[in-house]
């Protein structure tokens, strides 16, 4: 086992072409992911948060190699897997698995649970027949379900149980990395707790690396070790969760944290910092800092200069022109 991170992404870019007009000429591009870098160690969870449409799922799909990046590198265990021969790709697919957001539509209702969960075992030639059934039974037990669930159909299970089935399927091939894209968003709090506990137990047991995508900050804080905040295709802040929640430095992170409702009526918030307006379109992102159109602290130079993501303090990366290296985490003064 090398010291290299389980998953590393360097300067990842994904642009989707926009075609329009009668001839469907290419007229522009949606800059869904616009230069993203991060690394996840064994046994670590990196959370990815940000507003709808900021590119979280696109990052996930690119590292899963469900879509090709426009540029940049993806490394698994130190090995560059950005461009792989079909043979190596097969190996890659085994090492990185995913848990989907929607346990309802991601499983074929006509197939039995045993077939669904055992599918990767069969596909990768790991096990079949009796051997496969035995492994599926063990996997089901590991995710807290009875082995006889194998012979039932997915619609007979609740949302939380279906999400467990999805996790069992992802685990079947002993992956190193799991990309979980909003795995608990469709679930009730009571059921969500079951799934989060399970994910944490499995990570501790198998030293899995998780890329965990969500826009629920409380869930994020619960499960992540470090958190990356994205805004319009770029990471604007990345640090360990304690620092992120106690001293956020990027104005967008600050707005995000203050907007989250707190489940405690004795702490009704007097005033939130509310970022006004909608997210600008990623097809026409504002120049300079992408956030300047909604930022209460923007300076004239924010409209022209792109703030790089820099390490302003040990392990604390921020992309804001008002937070240079060594900047204090004190709140900023709004510009008039």
């Amino acid at each position, binding site marked *: 086992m090398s010291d290299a991170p389980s998953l590393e992404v360097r300067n990842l870019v994904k642009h989707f072409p926009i075609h329009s007009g009668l001839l469907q000429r290419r007229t522009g591009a949606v800059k869904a992911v616009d230069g993203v870098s991060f690394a996840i160690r064994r046994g670590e969870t990196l959370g990815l948060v940000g*507003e*709808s449409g900021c590119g979280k799922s696109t990052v996930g799909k690119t590292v899963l190699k469900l879509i090709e990046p426009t540029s940049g590198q993806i490394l698994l265990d130190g090995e560059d897997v950005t461009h792989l021969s079909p043979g190596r790709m097969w190996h890659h697919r085994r090492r990185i698995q995913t848990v989907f957001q929607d346990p309802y539509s991601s499983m074929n209702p006509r197939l039995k649970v045993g077939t669904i969960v055992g599918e990767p075992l069969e596909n990768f030639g790991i096990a079949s027949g009796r051997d496969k059934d035995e492994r599926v039974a063990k996997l089901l037990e590991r995710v807290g379900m009875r082995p006889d669930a194998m012979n039932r159909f997915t619609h007979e299970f*609740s*949302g939380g*149980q279906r999400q467990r089935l999805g996790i069992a399927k992802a685990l079947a091939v002993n992956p190193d990395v799991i990309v979980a894209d909003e795995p608990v968003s469709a679930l*009730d*709090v*009571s*059921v*969500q*707790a*079951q799934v*989060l*506990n399970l994910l*944490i137990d499995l990570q501790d047991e198998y030293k899995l690396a998780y890329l965990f995508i969500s*826009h629920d*900050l*409380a*869930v994020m*804080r*619960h*499960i992540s070790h470090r958190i990356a905040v994205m805004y319009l295709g770029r990471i604007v802040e990345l640090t360990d*969760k*304690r620092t992120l*929640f106690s001293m956020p430095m990027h104005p967008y992170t600050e*707005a*995000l944290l203050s*907007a*989250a*409702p*707190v*489940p*405690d*009526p*004795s*702490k*009704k*918030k007097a005033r*939130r910092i*509310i*970022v*006004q*307006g*909608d*997210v600008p379109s990623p097809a026409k992102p504002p120049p300079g800092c992408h956030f300047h159109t909604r930022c209460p602290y923007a300076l004239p130079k924010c409209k022209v200069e792109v703030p790089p993501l820099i390490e302003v303090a040990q392990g604390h990366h921020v992309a804001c022109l008002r937070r240079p290296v060594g900047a204090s985490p004190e709140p900023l003064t709004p510009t008039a």
Partner: protein
Amino acid sequence: MSILTVRDLATHFHTRDGIIRAVDGVSFDLAAGETLGIVGESGCGKSVTALTIMRLIPPETARIARGSVEFEGRELTRLSEEQMREIRGKSISMIFQEPMTSLNPVLTVGTQIAENVWRHTGVSKQQARERAQAMLDLVGIADSRRRLDEYPHQLSGGMRQRVMIAIALSCDPRVLIADEPTTALDVTIQAQILDLMLELKEKLGTAIIMITHDLGVVAETTQRVVVMYAGRKVEEAPVEELFARPLHPYTHGLMRAIPRLDADAETAGRRPRLKEIPGMVPRLDRPIAGCPFAPRCDFATERCRVEAPPLEDHGKGHLAACWETARVQAVAA
């Protein structure tokens, strides 16, 4: 003073597989200017309760089996469809759980708002259009004049949701029923919309029923909360009281299952376990003996499995339907 009074309301679906008791004896009062929260696990009957009040349940399968809904002295369950149409969108309006499906894709946003105004107030079409524009301004949509002539697909999700709110509020309703109004949205847009609803409530004195399973939203916006389970009300209390002293084991479990932003989530580097509520909600197409929560309840006794607990008053406006509230409180303390 209660402006909407719901008593022993029961709505059943008659399907090929039998009778589904989606709502089975729900009562509550809504005071003028108040925000009442309704929470509960998916499928417990929150939306059906709201749709029954609005008389929008599918007529082919759904029946109001019993109970009453009284609004400003009128019994809504007995009104004709025509009388109901006068109330809907004017005195009582609703923001639906799925905004994408409830806006008409082939009509402009302006037309959809203006139509509601025009239908209910008898103003001229020009005045209705002006009102529509004012509503867009009110819900914080910039460049309202241009937006009036746009179609729903030209707007972002957050803007569409605000258009729904603009329609719902266009005739200054006395009661607004908001069914998961912000679930599909980001926290930043969610915060904008919740603030807007509360602001309008202050300005117009609208009473709000806020249906959500986000307990953060409940804590921040409501004064009183009804907790539903399997088609029934199992607990009701002022919001601070409910969070501080949940009496029903389901509510108690729910409170402990929330990951908390404000809690120190990492004790000595370890991520603590969240409390789970194991098991599933009971099927609603079979009669339920005893307490509906008994199969999942840590506090259940033999009695709970056979005898349904009545809703009892525990003081301070706190009602709960559970035989074991004393033990629940002892554990919570």
